[in-house]
């Protein structure tokens, strides 16, 4: 699991992923008649609740020539309904001292509120209402496009690293929509219409394409009738929406190098993007194997790359690996290195390659495997320590197609993995070399 918020900025390598067994979280899950999935995770530390509603639709589900419209709709969801017009939603939550926000990834859109527990019914009433009654005016569309363009300028156009990631993704995916930016291209944002947005909303938003995850100081038995009252009456969409994603064609040996030279670049680094399967393609066990490969090769503290390049050769600030097998569709396995001196970029990359070759030739040790596994036993404890941490864990995973049974099995699955499995996975992913490599070069301004 894990997610990418709209600013697809830095390095997937930071994504640590957590999955864990049922007993750790003491959750309750069920489904309403209209298809809404519900997960409740009680935690009574403070009289606070975290209410999150996840729609199984993201930017990669945008129609042709409308890149980013899922994110645009996310903005418009705050524009009001007949029952709660204009900014009643925002204002009410604010006035009650709640915190609210939303974000869109390629695969899902989430709306969330943290608030004192006594206000939970108000949140549910308004959130349920905008699931089906959103009003979108021409004027809202015109104004909000300006806000989104402004957001794009701040988060992408003004940041050379973000522009480079956009370019690298476009090279990594010729056909699959992960190749398009989550926020959309400026040229296409200009073209959104009221009808485009409203149709997208009508196609994708409904109880049978959503997951409600509530964590916090709640009494489950008292909460269930409330959930039924607010969400239970919403009719499900006529046809359950289906994602139609292009299958990425094989690149048949073509590789790409993408560079950005810009004085605003904070640090020089390179990132190699290897093609890798995800949990739907390879199964959750294999996804767990690749996750351990990511740790053994690329953990920032005990990974092989860090040991070789940062500790021993002292050539790099950091060197790490990242694996995003928890996306809805297959994405990448990445290796990133940041040379201390920009001039050593290719030297660092060569050292990385040497480590990769050694891994492919020799495999891994039992000790490395045990160290990596041990981290995961702690992860679920950390996750449980915050309401949004635990709720997002469920929301992120369920919204891309993990089942609760998968989540319950994942940790156990990690413990069964053998050195041989990790070695085989390394050979199959890394032998072919990266499809795309990106490089950042800070240049000195005169």
């Amino acid at each position, binding site marked *: 699991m894990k997610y990418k918020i709209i600013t697809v900025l830095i390095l997937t390598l930071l994504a640590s992923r957590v999955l864990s067994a049922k007993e750790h979280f003491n959750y309750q899950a069920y489904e309403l008649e209209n298809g809404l999935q519900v997960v409740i995770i009680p935690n009574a530390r403070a009289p606070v609740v975290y209410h999150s509603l996840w729609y199984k639709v993201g930017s990669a589900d945008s129609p042709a020539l409308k890149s980013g419209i899922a994110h645009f709709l996310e903005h418009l969801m705050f524009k009001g309904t007949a029952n709660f017009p204009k*900014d009643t939603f925002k204002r009410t939550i*604010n006035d009650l001292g*709640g915190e609210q926000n939303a974000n869109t990834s390629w695969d899902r859109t989430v709306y969330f509120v*943290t*608030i004192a527990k006594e206000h939970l019914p108000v949140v549910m009433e308004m959130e349920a209402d905008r699931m089906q009654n959103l009003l979108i005016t021409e004027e809202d569309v015109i104004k909000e496009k300006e*806000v989104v363009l402004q957001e794009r300028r701040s988060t992408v156009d003004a940041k050379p690293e973000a522009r480079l990631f956009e370019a690298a993704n476009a090279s990594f995916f010729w056909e699959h929509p992960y190749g398009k930016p989550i926020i959309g291209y400026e040229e296409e944002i200009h073209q959104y219409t009221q009808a485009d947005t409203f149709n997208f909303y009508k196609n994708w938003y409904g109880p049978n394409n959503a997951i409600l995850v509530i964590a916090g100081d709640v009494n489950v038995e008292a909460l269930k009738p409330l959930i039924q009252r607010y969400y239970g009456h919403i009719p499900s969409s006529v046809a359950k929406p289906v994602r139609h994603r292009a299958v990425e064609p094989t690149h048949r040996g073509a590789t790409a190098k993408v560079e950005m030279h810009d004085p605003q670049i904070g640090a020089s680094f390179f990132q190699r993007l290897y093609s890798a399967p995800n949990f739907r393609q390879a199964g959750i066990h294999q996804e767990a194997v690749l996750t351990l490969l990511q740790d053994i090769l690329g953990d920032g503290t005990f990974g092989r790359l860090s040991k070789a390049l940062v500790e021993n050769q002292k050539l790099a600030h950091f060197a790490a690996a990242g694996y995003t097998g928890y996306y809805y569709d297959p994405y990448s396995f990445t290796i990133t290195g940041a040379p201390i001196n920009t001039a050593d970029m290719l030297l660092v990359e060569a050292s990385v390659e040497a480590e990769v070759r050694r891994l492919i030739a020799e495999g891994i040790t039992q000790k490395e495997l045990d160290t990596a596994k041990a981290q995961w036993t702690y992860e679920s404890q950390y996750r449980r320590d915050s309401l949004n941490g635990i709720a997002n864990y469920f929301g992120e995973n369920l919204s891309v197609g993990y089942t609760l049974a998968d989540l319950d099995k994942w940790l156990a699955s990690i413990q069964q993995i053998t050195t041989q499995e990790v070695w085989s996975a390394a050979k199959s992913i890394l032998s072919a070399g990266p499809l795309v490599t990106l490089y950042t070069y800070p240049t000195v301004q005169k």
Partner: protein
Amino acid sequence: MIYARFSSLIVCVWLCISATAVFADIPIQEWTTAKKIHVIFVPDTSTDLISVNFSFKGAGSKTDPAGKEGLTSLMVNLLFERTVSGSDKFGLQKKLKNLGVLNGLQYGIDPDNIHFSFKCPKEKFKDAFEVVKTILVTPVFDAKELAKAKSSDPSGTRLATSGEQEFASNVLLKKLFSPHPYAIRSTGTMEGRQAITLEDIQNAYKERITRSILVFSVIGNISSQALTTSIENSFGTLPEQAKLPVIPQATVKDNGEIIVIPKETEQGGVVFAQASIPLSSKDYLPLLIVNDIMGGKPFTSRLWQDIRENQGLVYSIHTNLANWDQASLLIGGFESDNKTVKRVISTIREEWKNMQKNGVTEAEFTASKKGLKGGFVLNFATPDGIANYLLRCYLNGLSTHYVNERNKLLEAVSLEEVNRVAQTHLAPEKLTFVVVGNLPE
């Protein structure tokens, strides 16, 4: 994501007292150990992790001697580098991670204080403390590591390589506070860092990392006795008394200027500020409401409504109360298209004038108070939140029992007080702006 608070602004570790309300049930324990170390502790059996936050009060970057700006920051950085002979940072980091301290020992230096924190599984508590002890109590300072650390730029000091708001906030601090130490970011200046010697680092360590200014805030499933034992075993051998310079009150030179730093960029980054009042002032809570209505709250604040919702000129705009030990500011920031920066600035001034002259409405007042009160409890939803908030109270000279008083105090604030404070403390003519961008003639 529908909004993001401007990130690089001066705000960093400044206190987040902008939250509010009564949550009376936190069982706070507080004591000073025989070795003079102050401890705030909240037992919590609902978690298997222990959150440990600690600070060296008053030892922040404001203590850097003139000409050696960046000293405290470099010293703390070097605690983590180690080397010289064998014992290196990698070994210690690995040890921590293997103990389940997944995020390692974290640190931060703000103008007033030095902060550390870590989180560990309760059964690894003693072992984790041992590693932290190695880092803090038996440091190794290495001349080579110092040279390496000095060679990197402090953040936000080069126009070409900095974010617009980050650079702008550095310029603004300089403008408002020079020659007070608050004029300079905690990471110091390039010249200051170059002048620092290994001996400076060693002395800075001895003078700052001491017991009498050390305060812990801990939450978790552990006994207070075991906590005291671990703290004393680990830190009991530090020198007791700190040797810190006396820092005078800062005068804020907010003269209403608009300073423009030209830079070829997609859009202008702007920060602005005027002098404010300390947390101890009786007007602080009324001003908190003023700020909340003006720009403190996303979505519904006047600036947000006017500038983002009605005019669509920004993606985000925000104001904040910022309080240090020796100065206070009302600050804000935004980014906008270069062409519209000036229009946003004049709108802000107009909003300032309007609220100063006409005050806030009864409805705004009621809503803001309700929101600030209701939101207070959100600070305590995680163990880290609780530990951090209590520590902040202590560092800011407030009783930790403030958490149980806060909403009563806020409730007692009247509309008349808020409007009086808006009139006396909002100073549109003093609001000083720094713009980094490519503004049209």
